[in-house]
């Protein structure tokens, strides 16, 4: 293997490099410039560079870099773009919020950018050491960001996130080491070959219990990332204490990156029919538990961020339906499950950020995250009410929204692979979720509030919110293009 870094390889990670450069630039500007509001502008406009560079990589070819540690393919770039959009919107909606951080605004934006660069790296890593480093690169800045507000709850959230993310990465590492020790490889692709070979030679599946344990530990490690049951306990506390834009970032970008790696591992390692079936049952069970638990607990919440934390656990459950559909391979249509995951994640990106645009603004205005502070929102800002309502419609999964299409697509993939019971579970859960999402709509539109002071939107905020809403509706009516892109992305990792 080539031990020198070539220019071509650098070009392949140009988006990540430009992110880090942008982060550095923001920090330097923070030092020299007194007017901090320019930082938001620089960070958001600067993001156009990595976005452009990523689209430039979207040429359909798969290239390896750094001795095969990174695989820059359509799939990876798709996730990079999801992460970049998430970062962009996070920064846009941070505009007013970051005023809370006084002198630390530069660090705030820089940390977001660095964490995002870790997630982008994660999306194209195909080797365990790289995965581990990218994971930590994304998690450590997040822990700092969660602690950013100078109140006790924020610090508590931070330490909880920190401990649990360290714990999950220790478990992940232990799994990786077992896999390395028993197969002598750290590459996902080799791993799949070894597993397949052991199946063909009718040795023990996975070549023994230790390897199986390793793979299970790795999966557990990532289950933390995507906040799926039974590793979901951290989400509500962390979401509640974190700065609101960071909560949004956590719930979308961090989750997407986790799914990217899981998809890569599952797709290459368990695509064999024999093991696929076993894993399918396991993942389907976790998915059913996740959505039921998330939805049932969300009903009782009175804090909007906690509600969204549980809703995000439920959403993770829905997305895992696609994962289960992937592994079961029971005569299913080509790649509907994993493509559904990509489609769903993209829709979730738009939907959740639309909601969090509103949540951020309301929390700045009322200094409260309780659901009752949304009463009479219609009188205070029509635009915000519109954004939130459409986002809720999409989260329930009613037309015409991307949530509806994505849900049907992902449940369809489950039906197709013989997981009818999971599809039924999923649709029933959507009914349950309608309770608490509609409750928010009702509070906004109908309840009265003595505080009828108008909420002012900044250009950035309305840009972020409206573009999300626009995306939700357009993709809800014409989802064809994104489905095709998702299928292309999935085909590129085979």
């Amino acid at each position, binding site marked *: 293997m080539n031990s020198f870094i070539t220019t071509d390889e650098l070009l392949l990670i140009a988006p990540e490099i430009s992110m880090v450069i942008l982060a550095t630039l923001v920090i330097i500007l923070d030092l020299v410039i007194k007017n901090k509001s320019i930082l938001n502008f620089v960070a958001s406009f600067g993001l156009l560079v990595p976005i452009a560079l990523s689209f430039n990589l979207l040429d359909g070819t798969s290239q390896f870099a750094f001795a095969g540690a990174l695989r820059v393919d359509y799939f990876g770039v798709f996730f990079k773009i999801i992460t970049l959009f998430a970062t962009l919107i996070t920064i846009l909606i941070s505009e007013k919020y970051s005023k809370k951080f006084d002198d630390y605004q530069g660090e705030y934006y820089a940390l977001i950018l660095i964490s995002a660069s870790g997630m982008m790296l994660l999306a194209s890593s195909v080797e365990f050491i790289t995965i581990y480093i990218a994971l930590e690169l994304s998690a450590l800045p997040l822990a700092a960001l969660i602690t950013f507000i100078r109140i006790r709850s924020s610090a508590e959230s931070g330490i909880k996130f920190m401990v649990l993310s360290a714990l999950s990465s220790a478990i992940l590492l232990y799994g990786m080491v077992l896999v390395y020790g028993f197969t002598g490889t750290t590459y996902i692709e080799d791993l799949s070959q070894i597993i397949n070979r052991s199946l063909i030679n009718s040795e023990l599946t996975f070549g023994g219990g230790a390897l199986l344990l390793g793979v299970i530990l790795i999966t557990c490690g990532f289950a933390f990332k995507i906040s799926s049951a039974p590793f979901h306990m951290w989400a509500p506390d962390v979401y509640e204490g974190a700065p609101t834009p960071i909560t949004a970032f956590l719930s979308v970008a961090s989750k997407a990156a986790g799914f990217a790696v899981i998809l890569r591992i599952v797709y290459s390692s368990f695509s064999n029919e024999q093991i696929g079936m076993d894993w399918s049952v396991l993942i389907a069970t976790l998915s059913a538990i996740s959505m039921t638990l998330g939805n049932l607990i969300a009903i009782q919440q009175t804090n909007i961020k906690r509600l969204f934390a549980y809703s995000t656990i439920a959403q993770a459950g829905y997305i895992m339906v696609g994962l289960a559909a992937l592994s079961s391979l029971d005569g299913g249509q080509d790649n509907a499950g994993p493509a559904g995951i990509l489609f769903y994640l993209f829709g979730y990106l738009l939907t959740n950020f639309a909601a969090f645009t509103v949540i951020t603004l309301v929390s700045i205005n009322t200094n409260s995250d309780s659901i009752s502070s949304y009463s009479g929102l219609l009188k205070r800002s029509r635009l915000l009410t519109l954004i939130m309502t459409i986002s809720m419609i999409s989260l329930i999964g009613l037309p015409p929204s991307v949530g509806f299409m994505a849900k049907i697509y992902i449940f369809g993939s489950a*039906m197709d692979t013989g997981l*009818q019971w999971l599809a039924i579970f999923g649709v*029933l859960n959507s009914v349950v979720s309608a*309770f608490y999402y509609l409750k928010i709509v009702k509070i906004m539109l109908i309840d009265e509030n003595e505080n009828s002071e108008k909420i002012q939107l900044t250009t950035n905020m309305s840009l972020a919110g409206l573009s999300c809403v626009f995306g939700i509706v357009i993709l809800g009516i014409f989802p064809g293009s994104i489905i095709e892109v998702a299928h292309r992305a999935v085909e590129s990792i085979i």
Partner: protein
Amino acid sequence: MVDQFNWILTIAIFFPIIGGISLLLIPQKEYIKIFAILFGTIEFILCSYIFLFQFTNGIGGPVLVDLNSTWFPTNIFNVQYYLGVDGISAPFVLLTGLLGLISIFASWNLSNDHRIREHFMWLLILQGAVVGVFTSLDFFMFFIFWELELIPMYFLISIWGSGRKHYSAMKFVIFTILGSAFMLVGVLGIYFSTDSFNMIELPEKLATAKLIIPASVLFLLTIIGFAVKLPVFPLHTWLPDAHTDAPTAASVMLAGVLLKMGGYGMLRVSASMFPNELHQFAWILALLGTINIIYGAVITIRQTDLKRLIAYSSVSHMGFVLLGLSAASGAGVSIGITGASMQMFTHGTITGLLFLSIGFIYDRTHTRYIPDLSGLAQNTPFLATGLIIAGLASLGLPATSGFIAEITIFLGAFQTWPIFTTISAFGVVLTAGYVLWMIQRSLFQHKLEKFNTLTDASIGEMFPIIVLVISIIGIGIFPSIISDMFSLGLQPIISNLQAIN
């Protein structure tokens, strides 16, 4: 099938939706009603054109087809943009156009500062969505419109309703979503068995396809969604609440059109795609239909709220639809199913008129509690006449459309289910009881002093009442206007069922 576009149906669906949204842009509130009526009238003309086109040019298959298969990547998910009307759907499109316009008139008394823009916006969007349900020939699109209709209805009830409006609106939404959740699984099951959403081709494909879920399960999954909407006995509890608390316009749409979506779905999906299962489960339909009729009627008698009374009478009347459908397993299949369709259409106009008159009366008296009303006929003779005509049609007086529908259903069902039909016939007696009693208590008897100041219907209120009365009596005298069309559209279903018998 080749891609083609006649645009009429597409316009009929999206014109009210876009028109409704554009109401938000009109700055002067005084013009909102005028524009809403304008949009409603245009939509009514479009729907009438669709009906007349089918009436004159009707063939066995769908006409006015809009088909575009490039909407989705069909190799991945075979969804088409496929609209068309045939004999089954054309009358319902007309009904939607008619009641849509009438529901706009029903909001005549809504004051300008009561969120009037949104009110008409949601009404028009609702109308577009319902036209979408009736004209979609792609199962996926059908499902989209089926769900789309929920959002406007939720807002209509929970913002402009009365009483426990939030509770009722939520109950309505949860029940319907629950039903459609099962339906979705059924739809996906059908799709992955046949690789097609095409409702015209599906009956044929399903007969030969290798199903991933047993056909009887698919049948039950889909019919649950329709049963909630119709509503069928154990799933009917949302209906009285929703109707009672909804504003008049929403009640008219809900009772007049939305319930028919359930019956239409049973015809379009359950009867045409699963004839064997319908045959097999017909006894359940007959049983539930009878329960609906009798239970609904008994409950109705003891209602004291005018709207609630009409709501429960809807439950009773929708039982007739089920009874008609249950004739599928016997010799009376042709008459029974045609009767069921007729009943849906006529019930739409009759209940529309009932809710409309009651809504206008409520606007004046501010009470719907029957013991508080008395002798209204002397102050508001026009409204009272409307209510009486609707009531008489509702109890099935000859020369009104209600009579035709019920008599055909009995004729059809009696051949297969003589006992159930005989029991159901008592429902008619009960209906006569509650309707006449209601009319007597609220319109006649001694005149109350507090109602002396009441004025009779204004021009804007008279118009919808007159239109509905004409349609009720017109169909009562010339039933063949719609019954011929229904028989034409139902022909393939009926011949399928007859083949099984």
